[in-house]
């Protein structure tokens, strides 16, 4: 036999055997993929924001396929349109998505609070926080260096006068900023027309008063006034239980009567101070 053939033939035979084994193996041991998975995955926006509580869109699609009874209305950025498609694929009833917007629980801008020192370091909130809890006199408030601005996929956050502000019409409620903020003062609040506490200071009233004129001093006036008993003061800072803050007979009462004006109203144009400045 030609020497070239003695070399080529064994290699070809081994190659064909390997290929055959691989083909058979992949056919025999194919992992069954749920046929709904690619469909669901196509519906989801693919932002991998994690607002649904799963690790990205793939994680949510997987949970929908594998776990019975996973709600179809968890995708906040996709809103009602995605929920409708998902419930069609899953064969369950359509549920309305509760749209959420991010809210910054701080309104201590440059006029209301002072600086402890001048900061010339890395322009990042998490870096500034390492230096005596940030340059502002209030160690709980917004640092104003825009970690959330950089993290926001919708560019819905801007730093206005030293405090981060969310544009509710742009915000898709993905919640990335709530995880990025080193002060943890951004939270997601269901949709529009709500009352918001714009302070996160947990110090006693006298201390809070010294560092910021907007700060919640924990006077409990709102607690007494609220007809639904939705507001409680926890650690010297008012907290609203949004499950109770519904059908208010005297909407905005708390905001109008707040001692420092840190309870504000929010709607599609942003957060508004109701109380008149003295």
């Amino acid at each position, binding site marked *: 036999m030609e020497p070239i053939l*003695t*070399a080529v033939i*064994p*290699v070809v035979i*081994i*190659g064909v055997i*390997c*290929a055959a*084994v*691989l083909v058979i*193996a*992949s056919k025999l*041991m*194919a*992992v069954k993929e749920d046929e709904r998975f690619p469909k669901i995955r196509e519906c989801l926006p693919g932002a991998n924001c994690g607002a649904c509580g799963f690790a990205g869109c793939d994680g949510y699609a997987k949970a929908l396929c594998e776990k019975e009874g996973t709600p179809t209305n968890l995708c906040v950025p996709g809103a009602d349109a995605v929920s409708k498609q998902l419930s069609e694929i899953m064969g369950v009833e359509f549920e309305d998505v509760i749209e959420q917007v991010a809210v910054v629980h701080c309104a201590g801008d440059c006029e209301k609070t002072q600086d402890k020192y001048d900061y010339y370091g890395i322009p990042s909130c998490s870096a500034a926080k390492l230096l005596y809890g940030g340059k502002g006199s209030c160690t709980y408030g917004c640092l104003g260096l825009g970690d959330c601005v950089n993290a926001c996929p919708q560019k819905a956050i801007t730093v206005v006068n030293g405090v981060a502000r969310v544009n509710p019409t742009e915000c898709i409620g993905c919640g990335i900023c709530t995880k990025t903020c080193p002060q943890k003062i951004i939270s997601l609040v269901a949709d529009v027309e709500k009352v918001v506490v714009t302070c996160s200071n947990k110090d006693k009233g006298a201390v809070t008063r010294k560092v910021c004129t907007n700060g919640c001093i924990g006077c409990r006036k709102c607690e007494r006034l609220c007809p639904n008993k939705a507001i409680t003061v926890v650690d010297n800072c008012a907290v609203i239980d949004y499950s109770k803050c519904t059908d208010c007979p005297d909407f905005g009462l708390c905001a109008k009567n707040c001692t420092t004006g840190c309870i504000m109203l929010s709607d599609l144009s942003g957060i508004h101070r109701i109380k008149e400045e003295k």
Partner: protein
Amino acid sequence: MTKFIVILLSAVFINNYVLSRFLGICPFLGVSKKLDSATGMSLAVIFVMLMATAATWPIQKFLLDPNGLGYLQTIVFILVIAALVQLVEIVLKRYIPSLHKSLGVYLPLITTNCAVLGVTILNIDAGYSFAEAMVNSLGSGLGFFLAMVMFSGVRSTIEGSDIPESFKGLPVTLTAAAITSLSFLGFSGVIENLFPM
């Protein structure tokens, strides 16, 4: 028994595949940035080295050598190892999904790793029996594991230190790799004196 211990120890320390033979440098520099990925990669390498030796040694001894086709060694080994790794991946995905997930991308990555091919060829060159070849593969895999884990420790230290601008990144990594490799020269001669033949 002594022979197996000698083979194992010399494969791990003296003839370390990464630091003495300079095989498998690509994953050594590429995947050693984090400890968990370095461990995952090394475990996959140990696994594949053993599988590859178990598959290629019989092919060489019973197929190539009797037919005078020893010169086809390299191409046949590459073919067989690549097919084997693919097969292992399919099997793992079906039966042990957790292992498949933890080995992850590293399994296909080492399909054509030179350290794996190196082990199989050097086993033949050294004239090892099947058992000796398997022990050598295990030792080589463990040596790779040791080098990866050590170097990921070195790199995490480098990461946190103040390095001159022009030296950052690859230059300092390669220098550190050279010094780590130099340190392994200290093992040469140890085996000969521990187990005099």
